[in-house]
């Protein structure tokens, strides 16, 4: 009970769900990177996923739960914090906090908005029916041709742009999120604080760049 009300309890829930989400984006990234292996890579991956059947739905429900908790508390804490802080100082100065820390809820919401779009785009496939895998020919191995869908999508500057912007938001979110998570779990102790923050940023940048690379390289036709 206390957990859902307490200032620390809710932060911990944020951190746990945040961490699970990081777990998700890690797996998802590995899967997505298979696009660079050509049609055989990503199409096989997609096929494999679909073959899991009900497991996929269980997984989706878990994800929904994680997002729901993460977002509910994220927004709730944000609103409480707004209420606790009055008007600004005439001279407003911060010393150590970062842009990414100050914009967590916004980058989070951008990611959320993106997520909805992403689901409509690649899962439900209704945003661009002309290039959706359901509507185009199967690949040589009789699989849905996800590869063509993805490459065709990202060769479209508008779609690639949305993905790149969203991935920048994710990068920013993780820039603060990862080290913040260590602190919330109480695992940072002492002077190592700086190191934790630095490592968190590096990890975030790795994720961010890897994710951005997919639309970017496809858009730039470096990978075809």
């Amino acid at each position: 009970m206390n957990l859902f009300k307490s200032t620390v309890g809710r932060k911990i829930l944020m951190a746990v769900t945040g961490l699970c989400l990081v777990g998700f984006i890690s797996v998802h990234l590995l899967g997505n990177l298979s696009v660079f292996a050509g049609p055989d890579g990503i199409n096989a991956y997609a096929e494999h996923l679909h073959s899991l059947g009900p497991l996929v739905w269980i997984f989706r429900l878990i994800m929904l739960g994680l997002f729901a908790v993460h977002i509910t508390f994220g927004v709730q804490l944000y609103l409480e914090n707004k209420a606790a802080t009055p008007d600004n100082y005439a001279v407003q100065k911060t010393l150590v906090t970062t842009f990414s820390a100050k914009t967590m809820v916004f980058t989070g919401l951008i990611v959320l908005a993106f997520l909805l779009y992403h689901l409509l785009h690649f899962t439900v496939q209704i945003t661009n029916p002309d290039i959706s895998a359901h509507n185009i020919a199967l690949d040589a191995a009789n699989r849905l041709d996800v590869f063509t869908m993805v490459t065709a999508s990202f060769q479209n500057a508008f779609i690639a742009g949305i993905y790149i912007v969203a991935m920048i938001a994710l990068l920013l979110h993780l820039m603060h999120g990862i080290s913040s998570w260590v602190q919330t779990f109480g695992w940072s102790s002492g002077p190592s604080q700086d190191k934790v923050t630095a490592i968190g940023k590096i990890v975030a940048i790795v994720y961010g760049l890897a994710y951005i690379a997919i639309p970017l390289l496809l858009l730039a036709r470096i990978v075809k």
Partner: protein
Amino acid sequence: MDLTLHVWRQKGPQDKGKLETYQAKDVSPDMSFLEMLDEVNDGLIKSGKDPIAFDHDCREGICGMCSQVINGRPHGKQEKTTVCQLHMRQYNDGDEIFIEPWRAKAFPVQKDLIVDRSALDVIMQAGGYVSCHTGGVDDANAMLIPKPIADYAMDAAECIGCGACIAACPNSSAMLFTGAKVAQLAALPQGKPEAKKRVKAMTEALLEEGFGNCTNHYECEAACPKGISVKFIAKLNREYLKSLLPSSTGV
């Protein structure tokens, strides 16, 4: 040196308040910041105006009474220094200085630069103590506390309760203040028996008093005149997590 001051003036808690401009002339670099304000006040009094009200008492950086945000920084620009220990040699002729009160919903302004910080006392009353009786306790050396632990507790215990951490926090959270006390007592054998209860009670009080939630900006640590580390917030978080574990009393 001559300075231009923009000072927050507010007659009472209900008043809206605004910045007013004053000139401070012939300020000596050896003066403390508060002595500079004393001089300005003497001038105001002589011209029949209400002097600037500000909190202060010990003027040696330990009571935690002084509390001013100077050019956007609680306690001004010198690191690990309270306003009363800040000296004018940190400033240059012609500088413009903005002086404002601590701002947080939990710290309503009472007059000019004076705010009500009683919320901090309430957090302490929630559990910032060891429930020992007066008298009838063990010999002081009965429980050994190795130096590193005593030092850790002392690092946390140095908090002067000024509230700069809250004034600096973008969320007006009091986690550094609370974490320092939770960590001090949790580290010591005397404080351990009540550790679970304490961390729950103090963090609950923190929200009830209208402080925000910590989102790890670490502005508090940067503003703290005593250099209290955010590792004590991590310790508080750890203590909270531990308090969720099933009771380990063994009965």
